[in-house]
């Protein structure tokens, strides 16, 4: 696209498919975290 560049491919909706495993680090920021689920 000439006018719009999208930086990320996976949408939040897609992240729900294998999400919620609970193995990621607890946070005290959510945005800074990385997913630790290899299937996600």
């Amino acid at each position, binding site marked *: 696209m000439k*006018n719009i*560049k999208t930086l*990320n491919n996976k949408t*939040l*909706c897609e992240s729900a498919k294998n999400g*919620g495993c609970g193995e990621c680090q607890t946070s005290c920021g959510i945005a800074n975290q990385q997913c*630790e689920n290899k299937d*996600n």
Partner: protein
Amino acid sequence: MIHQYKLSGYSIVLDIGSGSVHAVSDLAYDAIALLDSGMSSAQTEDELLPKYTKTGASHEEIRECLSEIEELIDEGKLFSDSDYEPLADELKERSRGIVKALCLHIAHTCNLNCSYCFASQGNYKGKRELMSFETGKRALDFLIENSGSRRNLEVDFFGGEPLMNFEVMKQLVAYARSIEDEHGKNFRFTLTTNGILIDDGVIDFANREMSNVVLSLDGRREVHDRFRIDMKGRGSWDRIVPKFQKMVEARADKEYYMRGTFTHLNTDFVKDIETMLELGFTELSLEPVVCDKDDPLALSEEDKAIVLQQYEELAELMIKRRREGRPFTFYHYMIDLDEGPCIYKRISGCGAGTEYMAVTPSGDLFPCHQFVGEENFKLGDIWQGVVNTALQNEFATCNVYARPECADCWAKFYCSGGCAANAFHASGSILGSYEYGCDIFRKRIECAIMLEVSRFEDEEAQE
């Protein structure tokens, strides 16, 4: 819902429902704003024509831009729906009763006397005491017993000053390592320290066993020594900086970060970041002070504009140093747009009071370290478990959908509704909100995403 902003020369559009981040041209930026205001595609085209044909854009180029926007809408990456509320309850049910992280307060005492300390100089408004090995061992057993199928377990050694109970810390780590395999668990330990007691033994132990260390440093000597003083009123900067430098050098590529506090008296905190960089530290965090709003150190309404400007200045400094090949990280600007947390995590928050709890030296359980000392927030203890289930249920409802103020906030899936302790101290309710903190958070996320756009654009330019 979308959020548009311009920062450091970049035009950025965030689609909140999908989490998509778009770097856009001025033409697309204006077109998206018009569509967001309720205009049709045809009306938007008519509105854009006079302005953009003056700048040399053809009618065809405007139509092409609108067709790109339509394509993103069709892909669900712009003006997308975002009803994830049912997932919040689903996750709560799925993880009910699961504990995966403990903040072990192994020392409710301290060898410094910092006047701004949220923990009342380390004793949390109570008596000075150290956790015994027996209590710590029971806390680790409690964690394993209540961790369900979770493999990764976290234990933070916290205080007060945890190194004042170093022998017990070592014994607890050895105990955890001796039982983790048989239970199929992986313990990750962290240490938060003021640095006074760091020596070669501590450095060796921390580098072997701590997945991360948090080192308390406020930046400039005069800023740090204004508050971080010992019992005789002497500053600590000269004593701790060489120890921190030695520890960081020895950690090589293991994680650490410098964790400082800024107050009303140093709202020009980028200078403190620069001091840390000059000292050789590159993993940095500086946080607004946590205190009563009437405290002379509290950030005022007048400070807010300065603080927000400082966050922008900090982002500019990061771009400059990255381009010079001298990058550094600022914890609130670390964001992974592709491998970040899933939507379940984003709506459920930090887990305080449910999957994360603080343990006092005597074994009492509190929702998190910032609630320790608030007797109304005692959940139970490590022998009986959680007995105040009503309180725990209240914390379980702490998600992004629990606060009406979050409904229209574009940053809700980045902050997950914010910090329950901040909300409590600002509004008297853990389900309240802390608007000052929200403004700071939104600015930090705008900067963090802009930094990703900057990196992306630089990489594209090099290709």
